[in-house]
């Protein structure tokens, strides 16, 4: 049963991964990546890591991929344009390079004594799967790295905000917002849409900046 689930979701992961790298449209690539991530979450659960499976679904498929989708729709990315370099040569070079790379991997695995279809690992214990043991590791042994990862995320948020700002955009800080003096607010009632007796003339702005107000 477990073998059946493994091969089913392994095939699903590989198939959708191939779609990720071959599909021309970024939207379909991203949606296919969701499928890959979900099937890998199943494999995580199969390996006795249900917490990581949940995190994979929530954080990866739920947050990161949605971020990708937002950016794709924001940028209105079209399909890749027609090739203007020799794509065939580039593709074959990449394939040969990856095969050489995987060969090195395989050699490394081989030298550690792992064989395809080797002995199955020990059956899962209740204690290994329990969330408590993961939490003890995460918040005990690896507490300092955990805090540092939190700091890294904070830095990433600030960096992303700064990098994505429009250069030369006005500083939307509170100081620039108009501060209305009492009774000077522009009328917003659509039912009373006659000429506003209090409508500001050019010479007399309806709002004063905070500096002028001081």
């Amino acid at each position, binding site marked *: 049963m477990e073998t059946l689930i493994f091969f089913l979701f392994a095939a699903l992961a590989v198939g959708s991964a191939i779609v990720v790298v071959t599909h021309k449209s970024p939207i379909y690539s991203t949606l296919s990546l969701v499928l890959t991530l979900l099937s890998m979450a199943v*494999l995580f659960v199969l390996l006795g890591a249900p917490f990581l499976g949940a995190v994979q679904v929530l954080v990866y498929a739920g947050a990161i991929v949605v971020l990708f989708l937002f950016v794709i729709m924001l940028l209105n990315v079209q399909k890749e344009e027609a090739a203007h370099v020799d794509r065939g040569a580039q593709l074959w070079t990449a394939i040969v390079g990856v095969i050489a790379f995987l060969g090195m991997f395989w050699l490394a695995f081989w030298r550690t004594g792992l064989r395809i279809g080797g002995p199955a690992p020990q059956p899962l214990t209740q204690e290994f799967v329990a969330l408590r043991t993961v939490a003890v590791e995460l918040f005990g042994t690896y507490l300092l790295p955990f805090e540092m990862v939190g700091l890294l995320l904070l830095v990433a948020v600030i960096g992303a905000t700064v990098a994505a700002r429009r250069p030369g955009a006005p500083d939307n800080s509170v100081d620039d917002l108009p501060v209305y003096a009492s009774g000077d607010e522009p009328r917003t009632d659509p039912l009373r849409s006659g000429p506003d007796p209090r409508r500001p003339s050019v010479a007399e702005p309806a709002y004063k900046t905070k500096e002028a107000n001081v």
Partner: protein
Amino acid sequence: MSAVPISWYLLLSAILFGIGAIGALTRRNGIAIFLSVELMLNAANLTLVAYARQLGSHTGQVIVFFVMAVAAAEAAVGLALFIAVFRQRHTIDVNRMNLMRW
């Protein structure tokens, strides 16, 4: 209930990593390259979880947790950079991003 040998997971992880590497090397759309990198990160995660299972240790799972956090940070910063580049050049084709090429 027969458990799957760990080598199958490693083989699957290597295949996924290879697919991701081919994508990262051949795609020209910047976002597609990012997706391929995410694929490679996930393949590495699968290896770590598989070894954690084999060795009966939780260290691999904790490292996978950190890798996910770093991947989130990388995606946020990278996509923000692509937005900035798109504003300037109106494309995210990496072949046209040659400002820092020698």
